[in-house]
């Protein structure tokens, strides 16, 4: 066998792919041919060097990616196993998508709602924040009517005694009073009943809170009904 043919068979010989007669012929040739032995040694050396090449270490991130990939694919496979899991999977996906959409809005929404509540409380609930004076701000009532306040009483009498005093002689008396800016009775007009001293005293010594127009006291009228020594405004 020629050297050229033997050298083509060296590779299978190294891999133990030669058998029988062919193998014997090649071995016999190698025993007598230095050039072919040198080729055998070179190939053997090459092969052993290739086998000794270290196995390259896998990058850690690749190992991690493969694990994630396996996990995803397993989950995907499981979702296809039955309709129930398929629906469950899509329900989870929808819920996740909804949550992802809503989550960025949650903080602004909560902040806005809280701010609205705080502002509402500050403005409309009197006991919140500045309590007291703001709650009875007369300026808010732009136009008011006269209101009776105190009855000062006639000279020599304790203020208020007229109202608590003995019953009036008449059963019912209705008087229209004209109140000036300072709250005093400026004029009157009897609508029902008779004018007598008791009624006159009561009218003269009564003091009213005058009517107001945009906060300023102005003259006004008030109708007073007197029953048995007590009055009832209208």
């Amino acid at each position: 066998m020629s050297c050229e043919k033997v050298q083509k068979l060296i590779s299978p010989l190294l891999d133990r792919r030669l058998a029988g007669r062919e193998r014997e012929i090649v071995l016999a040739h190698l025993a007598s041919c230095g050039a072919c032995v040198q080729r055998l040694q070179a190939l053997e050396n090459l092969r052993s060097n290739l086998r000794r090449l270290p196995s390259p270490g896998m990058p850690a991130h690749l190992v991690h990616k493969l694990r994630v990939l396996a996990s995803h694919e397993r989950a995907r496979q499981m979702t296809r196993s039955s309709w129930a899991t398929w629906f469950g999977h899509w329900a989870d996906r929808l819920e996740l998508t909804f949550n992802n959409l809503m989550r960025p809005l949650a903080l602004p929404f909560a902040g806005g709602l809280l701010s609205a509540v705080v502002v509402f409380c500050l403005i409309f609930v009197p006991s919140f924040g500045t309590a007291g004076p703001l709650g009875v701000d007369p300026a808010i009532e732009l136009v008011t009517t006269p209101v009776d306040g105190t009855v000062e009483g006639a000279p020599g009498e304790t203020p208020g005694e007229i109202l608590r005093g003995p019953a009036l002689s008449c059963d019912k008396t209705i008087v229209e009073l004209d109140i000036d800016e300072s709250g005093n009775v400026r004029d009157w007009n009897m609508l029902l009943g008779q004018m007598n001293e008791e009624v006159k005293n009561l009218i003269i010594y009564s003091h009213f809170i005058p009517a107001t127009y945009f906060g300023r006291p102005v003259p006004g009228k008030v109708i007073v009904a007197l029953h048995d020594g007590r009055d009832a405004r209208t």
Partner: protein
Amino acid sequence: MATSILDLGLDRAAEIVAEGDDLRLVQALRGGTEEAYEELLARFQQPVYTLALRLLEDQSEAGDVVQEVFLKVFRNIGSFRAQSTLKTWIYRITVNEAHNARRWRFRHKRREVELDPAAEDGRSFEDVVADRAQSPFEAVFDRERRALLDVALERLNPIFREAVVLRDIMDLSYEEIAKTLNVSMGTVKSRILRGREALREQLAGDLERASALQLLPEDGRVSL
């Protein structure tokens, strides 16, 4: 007459055991058990990465190929018919994916210029730090030998490289290589022979010189 497993050759017996393991693993994968997925990765992720890296000589491309391979394995495990071993099937997917990646690179990356040539060095942290099992001289020699082989493999025709890598690095039999590459046995023999010859010619004397260097200290004097 029934044949006992003891009557078979060691290779054939190992093959039968592997086939049994494969069937069990494939069934478990089809059932979707977590352990099966873990076992598949534990058994094949390193060999697949090694094969992809040896075929492509590029870490990032090899990483992409590995992910593609396992994606295809996970998605197509249902269509695995056990006409070959699981290893052969997975290696065939790897070779095909590496082939696709190489073709894509040839089309798209030819005009790209590497901005950081140092990154091509490929030396990881483990390569740089001192290895207590080797002397510095041995480490340098090993690195030199590896670099020579890497360059030679890279220059090799991809068709022959596939055959040589599968045979000499991945340690597949001729039959497995034939199934992996989907070619005949004669083609496998021919490709291995031509691949080895091409490597031998490229490395002509380099590995032998390196071996001789191993015996010499750095100053060139032989110490007795």
